[in-house]
């Protein structure tokens, strides 16, 4: 017997064209791919082309191929070594601090305690402020003369002419630390602001990872007599390692590619004590108008990016297996 509504033929096939997953899938993906190719892929190629030419803001034609001239000229500049060192220092130290602090904080927030919602809100705050504006608030907190932090340190007799128990204050007898004026301290300030800013995001990711650990496993660990530290290092951290890895890599990229903190806090200074590759690239390329050299400086981030990319791919694959 014939079933009403069941008809074959080409016309029907056409009507159901969008039901074919092999067609619908790529079709739905296409706009995103076009957008990304046009505004990420193309500029990336353009960046490489720029770095191999002598384009400036005044003359943007790409007809003059200069090979690796830009790179060799940059490498010879004393600022380059400093910017590269600073970038690596900035990325590594802030990531180590962030991951240690975020693991601790995630441990705390995975407990139940009174006032947790308020604590959570307070912890998220740095992440909610636009980064440039948050950094400017720190600019005040670290002011060379009126810094409230210095003030508190003075009140605690850790700084200033009046030391503790008749001795000199630990942090020096000057009235101010001048956070943003000294070589080491400026870098430390930049790192501190960056940790302040990224800690919420990492904490939230690790907190999510902790909640995916099955209750049974933790109960079993407790029955097996594992204490707090053993549980943390031998059960929890190994189990959240894939997500932790992704969080670290995320943080590294966000740190290495960031210029808002450095730009607003120190402009790379004093001298170039806190210059990092992104800010230097900005000063050369946009403010100095030498697009070619600016692009070349930024491209020094590419090897780092590739390493991280490979690590992410590996982690993603491993987490698929487990």
């Amino acid at each position, binding site marked *: *017997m*014939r*079933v009403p*509504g*069941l*008809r*074959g033929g080409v016309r*029907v*096939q056409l009507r*159901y064209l969008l*039901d074919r997953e092999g067609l619908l899938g790529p079709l739905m993906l296409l706009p995103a791919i076009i957008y990304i190719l046009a505004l990420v892929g193309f500029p990336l190629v353009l960046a490489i082309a720029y770095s191999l030419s002598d384009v400036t803001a005044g003359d943007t034609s790409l007809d003059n191929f200069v090979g690796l001239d830009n790179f060799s000229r940059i490498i010879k500049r004393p600022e380059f070594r400093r910017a590269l060192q600073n970038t690596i220092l900035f990325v590594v130290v802030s990531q180590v601090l962030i991951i240690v602090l975020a693991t601790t904080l995630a441990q705390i927030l995975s407990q139940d305690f009174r006032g947790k919602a308020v604590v959570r809100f307070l912890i998220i705050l740095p992440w909610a402020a636009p980064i440039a504006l948050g950094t400017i608030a720190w600019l005040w907190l670290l002011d060379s003369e009126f810094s409230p932090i210095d003030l508190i340190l003075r009140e605690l007799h850790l700084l200033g002419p009046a030391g503790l128990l008749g001795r000199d204050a630990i942090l020096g007898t000057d009235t101010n630390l001048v956070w943003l004026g000294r070589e080491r301290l400026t870098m430390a300030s930049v790192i501190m602001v960056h940790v302040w800013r990224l800690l919420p995001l990492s904490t939230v990711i690790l907190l999510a990872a902790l909640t995916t650990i099955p209750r049974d496993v933790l109960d079993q660990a407790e029955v097996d007599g594992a204490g707090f530290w053993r549980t943390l290092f031998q059960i929890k951290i190994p189990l959240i390692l894939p997500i932790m890895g992704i969080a670290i890599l995320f943080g590294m990229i966000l740190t290495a590619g960031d210029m808002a903190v450095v730009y607003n806090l120190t402009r790379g200074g004093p001298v170039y004590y806190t210059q990092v590759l992104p800010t230097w690239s900005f000063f050369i390329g946009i403010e100095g108008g030498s697009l070619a050299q600016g692009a070349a400086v930024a491209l020094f981030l590419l090897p780092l990016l590739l390493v991280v990319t490979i690590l992410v791919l590996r982690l993603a694959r491993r987490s698929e297996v487990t």
Partner: protein
Amino acid sequence: MAVVETRGLKKQFGEVKAVDGVDLSSKEGEFLVLLGPSGCGKTTLLRLIAGLEQPTAGEVLIGGQVVNGLPPRARKIAMVFQSYALYPHMTVFNNIAFSLKAQGVDKAARQEKVEWATSILGIDKLLQRRPRQLSGGERQRVALARCLVREPTVFLLDEPLSNLDAQLRASARDELQQLQQRIGITTIYVTHDQVEAMGMGDRIAVMYQGQIRQLGTPREIYDEPGDTFVATFLGSPPMNLVERDTHLIGFRPEHFLPKGVPEVQDNLVTFSFPVTRVEYLGADRLVYGVVAGTSGDTKTMARLPSTVTVPIEPGGDYEFVVPAKELKFFDRDTGLRTGPKPL
């Protein structure tokens, strides 16, 4: 109403042949069960019929029409998933009416149809609830009601009882079968549970490794298994297989009785049966032992009804008999059923 037919149907996922050349034809209005262990391809076959998967080769016909390339919505089928797949964001009423909306049925007619279906299944009090507020049995009924209102040509059911507890499953089995008989729609039912298959199916297709090993009534596939897979998959405990030269002799545990117990005394085949263990199960006794085969001893079981009171102890050596007509013969290498062989 319509018959479902597949011709040379194949489905490959990468290297895995999930369905490997299935020719199957349902009868009008019958209850056809696809039975097999997990991974045998029965669910994939059902999904191919539903149009949720596209075949690698072969054809699916519904009501005599080739429906390859037609999406599920054009096939006039209804399906119950193992999870019931109730839409969690809709009330029971909207869950059931959802397919009617797709057909463009007007509001009054929708109301009427939903009420009809829910009264048949006795869930007309639950219309305003959400799926998460329902018990397992109620969810199953909502899923069935959702199929009923569509007035489909074919019912496809994918292990719809496996999420129910054992007690509920027995009564649900009964209701489901009665419902199917009452509305008389061709039904294809996938399960790995042989009790469900035997109890509900008009015919059973036993599947293994992507192929249909045997298609027949429950009695046919139990009494006359086509190969050793079917013979050992059905029955609990399964058929005993004892090797003799190039063939295997099969006999069911319930036919393997102590000598002297069967009333008919002629045409009996006798085996020497050293007993290793006895399990007392109330209605039955399970007796475990070995029977000598060509290449060594074979573990063998006997199931004695409680009416057989002959004392049997572990460690003893007994003589057991099987009526000659209950012996089935299989080729040792291919596993296929053969004619009787001399013992």
